[in-house]
């Protein structure tokens, strides 16, 4: 079972990290809903990503606002008490027939690539709803080229976007909470990626 990233998903992840080089960043990866429900997939293609937060990643409330999770009883010490309520990203997923398939995180320190408590909990929650969920932790090495739908294209387009400082206009969920008019689906960047393809 392999994971593949489209150029769009990869670019937006990278731009998110590039916009906040001094912070930890995280976000979600989405895949298209599998048409054949009974047969398992041989590979998961993450078609897009939703950049979530930068800075303090270890706080629960806004992360819950961003995700949709099944209802559970509140337990003392449970870092993520949850409530059954479709919010925002879930609604967007439903409209586009996406499913949340993975989570990415880039830590504050480039040398520290271990997933922390937050990463593990989010990944666990996601895998409750999507059994083939993936977690991507950013390291400072070159990624393996197998996980790209088209590595050469991805490299070329990312370089162009970084050169033109497109990351300045990337919107994550934090930016959206600062000003609701900021669109976390990043349609302009999607257009730029398409344009460069």
């Amino acid at each position, binding site marked *: 079972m392999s994971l593949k990233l489209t150029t769009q998903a990869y670019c937006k992840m990278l731009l998110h990290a590039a916009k906040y080089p001094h912070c930890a960043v995280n976000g979600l990866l989405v895949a298209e809903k599998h048409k054949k429900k009974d047969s398992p997939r041989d590979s998961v293609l993450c078609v897009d990503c939703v950049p979530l937060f930068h800075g303090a990643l270890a706080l629960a409330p*806004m992360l819950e606002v961003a995700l949709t999770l099944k209802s559970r009883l*509140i337990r003392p010490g449970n870092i993520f008490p949850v*409530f059954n309520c479709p919010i925002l990203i879930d*609604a967007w997923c439903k409209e586009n027939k996406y499913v949340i398939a993975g989570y990415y995180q880039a830590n504050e320190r480039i040398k520290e690539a271990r997933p922390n408590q937050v990463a593990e909990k989010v990944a666990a929650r996601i895998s409750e709803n999507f059994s083939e969920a993936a977690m991507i932790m950013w390291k400072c090495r070159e990624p393996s080229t197998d996980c790209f739908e088209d590595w050469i294209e991805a490299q070329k387009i990312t370089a162009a976007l970084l050169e033109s400082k497109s990351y300045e206009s990337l919107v994550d969920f934090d930016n959206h*909470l*600062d000003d609701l008019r900021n669109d976390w689906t990043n349609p302009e960047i999607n257009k730029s990626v398409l344009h460069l393809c």
Partner: protein
Amino acid sequence: MSSISELYDVSWEEMRDKLRKWREENFRNSEQIVDVGEELINEHASKLGDDIWIIYEQVMIAALDCSRDDLAWSCLQELKRQFPDSHRVKRLAGMRLEALERYEDANKLYDSILQDDPTNTAARKRKISILRAQGKSSEAIRELNEYLEQFVGDQEAWHELSELYINEHDYAKAAFCLEELMMTNPHNHLYCEQYAEVKYTQGGLENLELARKYFAQALKLNNRNMRALFGLYMSASHIAASPKVSAKVKKDNVKYAAWATSQISRAYQMAGRGKKENKCSVKAVEEMLESMQITMS
């Protein structure tokens, strides 16, 4: 490549004022500072008067952020020449060593400042930053605690400590730091809201109720704080859903959550103004409102 003044049609005075604004508000928009500052220094140095020294300092720090060691070095040289024995300049030299990951050398520099002047807070804070950069969180926390015993009014330090505790998932101690900040800044809605987030993350009924109260307080201080509004909704919803609360508490919290939902909906309507991209969010909030009405009965 065209200059900033050509690209944005600004005068050197406007560029200088922008730099001042960024300095005063402590922005970390280092790439912009480098672009604007470098041009100002190269083209208009003679017009800046004494402002140039603080601009050299600001641009130098931004240059370190952008891996522009060439620019950082030249700014540092100018400052060294003008202020040969200054501790402030020495600290900048230390920061450059930090940027080059020469932590041992940086520490030596800071230690020499502290030998000369044991009350130099800047050097102490840089040493703590080095610990943080090296991933030595527990040591950084210990040192910062010691620092705060002496310099109990240093708000930047309290905030840094709260961040360190949050990263270590020690929410109780993070809450304590934020309480200090709220005491000295009772009108700051951001501290209130962050405190509420920490309480919420700690979990448990009592903490959720506290969280809800502080989200509400943050809203009172700034009714456009969306995080506080969402936080109010989430905490009230959780309290209402808890099997441990009385019927009255449940009813009250459902009311609070419903109010929050209507405010969120209104905020999205005002932001969306019919834009296509926001229709998704508006629809989601409408669904939220509907689900609230079902649980209210």
